[in-house]
Each structure stands twice: as structure tokens, then as C-alpha cells.
């Protein structure tokens, strides 16, 4: 995987200096970005200048939900009272098709830590915790080294690094809070909301790692500069993980509203013709190639397709891949990734994946009605959004690949079903047979 930026005006921002330095240590970081501004800590009952600036910048969280960051910061401040709050940087990145948070932390850790330190001051936090997936030891090492380097900066708010379990739902925000409080890393039933009662019962500002890096840049350059890229509704630049049949798959920094075409061009172009693109990862939405040509990567353009940029996953699927086999494989994985807490998720996603597998293997005729029925029974009934995300992925697949599913339903597996998987999944080696379909062929 490469780290690169398209040659677009005003970029790179977050990844500035990365092409020259590889990974920016503190000296390189200060050289490229300059020191973080000394913002006065807000007095009791007074407003933070940083929160105002983040609000004016219109920054939205980069972890998937796109919630306005300033609203979260205000909520933590409002819930604080006389207590110290917590700041949690979420870099767990459980989405298999996403590499942007680990790439960001490996290449420019101090930008993320700057943002965390600035935000911590703005919300009067007593501690900062940076959560990194335990399955990425190299990221843990880089962030730990960076945190040690910052002793020189004499920041007053203590910072610690926490290794959090891998897995899709373990990166969900309430699962992170549970883990930091010594419980199993599983989502909890909300309310209370994390900004009211998070880690150790304290009001907690928990955001994605990239979000904090943007906070650091807004503090340095201001809201006007930030809005110089992106759209009015989704300002600024964003990191995307581009995967699939392109010359140089990897993590790219783009302005919101960049066309899919120019992103693909920046990655050297396609290596085969395009069948479809998956936007937003494995809780995201498929868009067919016929509609992908004019696509721009911002939620205004994606909303009519039922898609949003989410955490920035753009996974291309080429004509040589079987979309049915890919969908079955990911759906089975998503069912296995249930935290095992809520009945509708445990049994429901298992049923979805099982019947999808039978449909794809030609054992169940037309499985479409059954999928729609299951989705209507399951939707909205989990404690977290995992089941709804999985249902969205499956629903868009059977819509976009209707012809391919119909063909499999009547004729069984196609020649491409055994091809090496295109969509990445942990534990599934590229080139191994599709596990979910293997059973049907015995």
C-alpha cells in the first residue's frame, strides 16, 4: 500500500511532508507544520476559542457518522460541571477495507496528538487516551515513540496509549469506553451518551484520529483556510482508502467533492474495467459502474445513492470479480463479527448470511424476498449500528447486482466465484477459496 496524494491544488494538508520524510518525528513535524498555537484554556463557564473555530470550520467527524465535531465538544463542555473530562482518540480502525487511520498515525503522529492536546485543553480534560488496535503493533510503536518525544513540549495534560482489541465492532465508540473501563470491548446500550458519561463516568470527547488531526490544522490556520477545500456542507480535506483494480491502491488525501474519476486517475488508473464501487466500507453502499462515472465523493452527491463517504473507504470491484461471491463472503464475516449481545443481530445476521449463501449457490431459488423480509425484521433492533450497517451493505448488493444474483439463484456458482477475493478481510488470505461458498460445493 502506498501513501500518495493526487496533484490537486492545496493538497496535501494532513499528509504534508510525508512524501519527503516518510514518518514525521517531532523535529520534522515542527519543521513542516510549525508549533501548535498556544490557545488559552477557557475559564469556568467561558467559551473556548478553539471550539468556536472548529464550529466555524464546519468540521465533521471522520470516523463514519460525520457528526459535527464542535457539537460534540460543546456537549462535553456542557456536561462537565466541576469535573475533569476525558479525551479519547479512536484509531482502532476495525474496518478491514480502511487503512487511513493507521497510515495517518504512522506517517504524521504528532498532528493527531497536537489535535488531541488542543481539544483536551478546550474541554478541560484531565487525561488523553490514544486507542490503537492491538493488531497493528507498528502503529503502537510509532505513537508511543511520538508521545515520548512530546515530553519536551511540557504539555500539562497526561497522555497514554491504549492497545484495544481488533475486530469490527470493538472500534465502535461505546465498545472503546467499555474496554478502557476494564469491561469487554463490546458496544453498550445508550443512553447515557458518551459525552455525558464516558470513560470512568466522565464526560468524554471521543473522536476518530483523523478528526483530531483536522482540529490541529484548524487551530493553526483557521476556519477560512479549512473551508478553502471541500464543499459548504462537508468542508476540508479527507483521507480515503482506495482499494481494488487500480495501479496504486492506498491512502489518498482529497478535498470533499473530488470526483471518483480524478481519485482513480491519481492512483494511476484502472487495471481492468469497473463493475461497481463500494463506498463507506462494509456498512456502506454499492454503486454500479454505470452510475459511478460521474460520482463525486461528498455526501451531497452520494445521498441519492443511499451512500455516504463514511470513514473514507472507496473499494472498486473489477469485471473479473464475482460480486455475488464477494457479497456472501463479507456478509458471512459481518455475521461472525457480531459482538454476540443482541438476539436480532446474533440470529438475524446469521440468517441473512446463511440464506444469501444458499441463494448464491443456487439452492434456494430467488432469495430476494427473503432478504427484504429479514432486513425489515432486524433493522433498528441492535444496541449498536452493526446490524443496520450489515443490512445496508447486503441490500445495496442485491439491488446493484440484481442480475448476477438472479443468475446465481437459477444456475448456481459462476466461474469467477472461485477467483481470489477482491474485498479484503482479516484472516482470509488472498487467493484462498471463498469460505462461505465452499460448503455449498461439497
Amino acid at each position, binding site marked *: 500500500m502506498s501513501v500518495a496524494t493526487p496533484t490537486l491544488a492545496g493538497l496535501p494538508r494532513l499528509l504534508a511532508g510525508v512524501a519527503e520524510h516518510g514518518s514525521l518525528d517531532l523535529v520534522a513535524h515542527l519543521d513542516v507544520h510549525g508549533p501548535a498555537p498556544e490557545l488559552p484554556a477557557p475559564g469556568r463557564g467561558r467559551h473556548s476559542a478553539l471550539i468556536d473555530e472548529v464550529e466555524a470550520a464546519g468540521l465533521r*467527524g*471522520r*470516523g*463514519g*457518522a460525520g*457528526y459535527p465535531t464542535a*457539537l*460534540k465538544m460543546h*456537549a462535553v463542555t456542557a456536561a462537565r460541571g466541576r469535573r475533569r473530562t476525558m479525551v479519547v482518540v*479512536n484509531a*482502532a*480502525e*476495525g*474496518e478491514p477495507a*480502511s487503512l487511513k*487511520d493507521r497510515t495517518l498515525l504512522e506517517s504524521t503522529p504528532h498532528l493527531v496528538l497536537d489535535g488531541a492536546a488542543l481539544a483536551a485543553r478546550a474541554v478541560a480534560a484531565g487525561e488523553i487516551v490514544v486507542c490503537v488496535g492491538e493488531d497493528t503493533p507498528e502503529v503502537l510503536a510509532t505513537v508511543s515513540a511520538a508521545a515520548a518525544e512530546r515530553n519536551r513540549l511540557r504539555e500539562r495534560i497526561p497522555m497514554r496509549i491504549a492497545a484495544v482489541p481488533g*475486530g*469490527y*465492532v*470493538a*472500534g*465502535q*465508540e461505546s465498545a472503546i469506553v467499555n474496554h478502557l473501563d476494564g469491561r469487554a470491548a463490546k458496544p*453498550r*446500550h*445508550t*443512553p447515557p*451518551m*458518551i*459525552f455525558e458519561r464516558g470513560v470512568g463516568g466522565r464526560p468524554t470527547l471521543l*473522536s*476518530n484520529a483523523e478528526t483530531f488531526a483536522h482540529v490541529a490544522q484548524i487551530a493553526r490556520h483557521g476556519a477560512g483556510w479549512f473551508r478553502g477545500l471541500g464543499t459548504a456542507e462537508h468542508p476540508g480535506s479527507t483521507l480515503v482508502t482506495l482499494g481494488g483494480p487500480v495501479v496504486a491502491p492506498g491512502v489518498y488525501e482529497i478535498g470533499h467533492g473530488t470526483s471518483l474519476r480524478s481519485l482513480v486517475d491519481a492512483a494511476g488508473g484502472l487495471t481492468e474495467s469497473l463493475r461497481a464501487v463500494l463506498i*463507506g*466500507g462494509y*456498512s456502506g453502499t454499492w454503486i454500479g459502474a454505470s452510475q459511478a462515472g460521474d460520482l463525486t465523493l461528498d455526501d451531497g452527491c452520494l445521498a441519492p445513492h443511499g451512500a455516504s463517504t*463514511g*470513514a473514507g473507504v472507496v473499494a472498486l470491484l473489477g469485471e473479473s470479480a464475482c460480486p455475488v461471491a464477494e457479497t456472501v463472503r463479507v456478509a458471512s464475516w459481518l455475521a461472525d*463479527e457480531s459482538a454476540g*449481545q*443482541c*438476539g*436480532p*443481530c446474533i*440470529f*438475524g445476521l446469521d440468517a441473512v448470511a446463511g440464506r444469501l449463501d444458499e441463494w448464491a449457490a443456487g439452492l434456494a431459488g430467488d432469495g430476494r424476498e427473503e432478504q427484504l423480509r429479514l432486513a425489515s*425484521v432486524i433493522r*433498528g*433492533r*441492535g*444496541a*449498536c*449500528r*452493526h*446490524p*443496520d*450497517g*450489515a443490512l445496508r451493505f447486503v441490500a445495496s448488493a442485491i439491488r446493484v447486482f440484481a442480475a448476477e444474483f438472479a443468475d446465481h439463484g437459477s444456475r448456481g456458482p459462476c466461474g469467477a466465484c472461485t477467483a481470489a477475493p477482491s474485498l479484503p478481510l482479516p484472516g482470509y488470505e488472498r487467493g484462498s477459496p471463498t469460505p462461505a461458498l465452499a460448503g455449498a460445493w461439497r
Partner: protein
Amino acid sequence: MSRHLRVDPIACEAHGMCAELLPELVELDEWGYPIVDGRALAPELVEHAQRAVRACPTFALLVEQRAAHAHPSRPRPQPKNSSAVS
């Protein structure tokens, strides 16, 4: 204020007492877990609902009070995360 029935899906273990005691409002899915809608409870059903709440062996059934203007399926402003990511 209005009252609404809610299930804590983590606590629920599909004992089915709620559907037994409150068939007007609770339907079970094919795995035995309750499906409730978010609509306000009719006044004549509040007492029955509270009986079902008390009977739940895992304390998974709740009657919630909400301000009248709140949208039933969206009771609070919520910084939400997609299921996992982030």
C-alpha cells in the same frame, strides 16, 4: 410527557414474558425476541405495560418517559458512530 415501551437488546434473553403479558404491543420475531414500536403508549395500556416490565426476568423491558415533542425513534441528540468503524 408521553410513555414509550423500549427493549434493552443486550439485556433481553428472549424469555417472552412481555409478549405473553402484553400481546397488544409486543410481537416476537422468529427467534423469540420482542419487537416493539416506538409509539406513545395509550393511557389504558400503561398499567399493563408496567406489569410486563416488572415481569421481565432480565429487566430488559422499559417504559420510558419522553418529552411530548420528541420524535419517537429519535429521543435525543446523539453523536452516533456507524457500527464499528472509527
